[in-house]
């Protein structure tokens, strides 16, 4: 009874705040006027036939996949390490929190300065390797975004894994030891399987979160060079608030929402448990 009630509530109220954006996707509003003129399917037609959409989808996917690949193994490794009860590891955890306190704008500005080919760290140290035009070349710019995202978020995800590791019952390791299991064996047979739900939680946060990266990309590259880092959220902002095309921008927002829901469901299916439940575990 209460389950069907919750579903009903979801259908009605989960959708309602999004109706606004759906309605606006059928308009040709410029963002400058008080009234909103409607134009049927025009926005959708222009968005769906625009080669900019598959490009933005590809960039979004690239950033999502690469940042997951960069963050997950390292976060697990570090999480397992700082789960130890030694005092210096607690200090490590405290310092790991610092990147989370900075605003994305501050982080982006710092890295923009740090990586500047003429005035940055590489230039003043005279290290050729660091002295590339990091944000002026498409592939490098994507790499920089992945790195900066990892810089900010690997500590956070490490702390999630730290929590997960500490919940694994000690008895399991003691039993494995009696059976003569080595350390590597214990990691793959006990730690990793026991972290399953933590991995789902962390991955959901990473994957769904990467859809909404905006501040960082906007300040670092503004979607450039050319449109090499123009992910969906950036594409939406540029179309809507720079080009005055709120209709198509709303259509992209709708796509963004559908993608987020789809991905959350996908991760949940892959993990085989209620995603909301595992997310709460994370909180």
């Amino acid at each position, binding site marked *: 009874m209460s389950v069907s009630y919750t579903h009903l509530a979801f259908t009605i109220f989960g959708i309602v705040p999004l109706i*606004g954006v759906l309605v606006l996707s059928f308009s040709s509003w410029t963002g400058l006027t008080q009234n909103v003129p409607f134009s049927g399917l025009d926005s959708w037609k222009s968005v769906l036939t625009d080669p900019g959409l598959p490009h933005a989808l590809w960039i979004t996917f690239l950033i999502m996949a690469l940042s997951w690949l960069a963050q997950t193994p390292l976060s697990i490794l570090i999480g397992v390490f700082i789960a130890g009860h030694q005092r210096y590891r607690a200090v490590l955890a405290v310092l790991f929190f*610092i990147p989370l306190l900075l*605003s994305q*704008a501050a982080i982006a500005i710092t890295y923009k300065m740090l990586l500047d080919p003429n005035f940055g760290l590489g230039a003043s*140290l005279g290290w050729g390797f660091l002295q590339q035009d990091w944000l002026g070349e498409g592939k490098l710019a994507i790499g920089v975004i992945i790195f900066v995202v990892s810089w900010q978020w690997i500590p956070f995800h490490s702390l999630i894994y730290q929590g997960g590791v500490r919940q694994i019952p*000690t008895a399991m390791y003691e039993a494995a030891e009696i059976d003569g299991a080595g350390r590597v064996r214990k990691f793959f047979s006990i730690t990793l399987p026991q972290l399953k739900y933590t991995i789902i939680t962390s991955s959901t946060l990473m994957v769904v979160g990467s859809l909404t990266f905006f501040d960082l990309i906007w300040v670092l590259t503004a979607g450039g060079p050319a449109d090499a880092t123009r992910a969906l959220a950036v594409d939406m902002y540029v179309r809507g608030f720079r080009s005055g095309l709120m209709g198509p921008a709303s259509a992209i927002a709708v796509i963004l*929402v559908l993608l*987020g829901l789809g991905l959350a469901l996908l991760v949940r299916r892959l993990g085989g448990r209620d995603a909301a439940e595992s997310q709460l575990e994370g*909180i």
Partner: protein
Amino acid sequence: MTIVLDSREAGKAAHAAPSSNGRRPRWMQYNWLGGLAGWLWLVIVLVPIYWIVITSFKLQTDYFSTNPLVPPSSPTLENYRFVLENHFVRYFFNSVIVTLGAVVPAVVVSFMAAYAIVRGSAVSRFIRTVNAVFLMGLAIPLQAVIIPVYLLIIKLQMYDSLGAIILPSIAFAIPLSVLVLSNFIRDIPKELFESMRMDGATEWGTLWRLALPLTRPALVTVTIYQGLQVWNGFLLPLILTQSPERRVLPLALTAFQGQYNINIPAVLASVMLTTLPILVLYVVGRRQMLSGLTAGFGK
């Protein structure tokens, strides 16, 4: 990996069991791979922060002529003076107004809503519905609904005001705050509510005299978290304000950087100035959070 070592140690401490690890030398039990990753990442995290701090105390002329990783021989506050001269005091107060204006009402409203949800869900279908709405709000990213929010703010004729940032910030802070606070209030023993009722306290009195003191640790946590979100928020100010007088700090940072692109020490001083209040809050708030939580367990 390490967990093996650590959990064994924890186990030993708990049971005071005799040790049985005579098989391998101690250094082999250390999690070298995890240790390497952990320390390496700490260096990666700290180097840019170190660079920000030392560079912000260098003169621009010195910046180009000295090793960027060596602290300045004669630290200067010149950059900070320059940043403050560029209206950062105003931006700072804009940020303070927006953060307080959003977080205080959001936490108060969330606390009362959470109380009502925990106490009233069993009897009121309306309250259950409200709770469901809040939970659904968790799933909605700000980016996805920013265009309708923008339209709403224009219709309210609030565009380019601090209130335009405050109102949506409150709305987006409520869902998570309600969730965390209601989970916390739910853990208060039923007997305490019962005895309050026996003593003739009203729900309103119970809310303030029983639930509030017992929920304090969660309130601190929620306040700090939401404060951080609003203080660092970039998208709402970017879209809902326009004039320089209404700039909040993250927006002012990017404008300042755009203007004084080459003056790296000054830009980094501006980054320092905007981050300092949060660092202070973190140092103070972290303790409070921890002591609050342990006090909760003690009772």
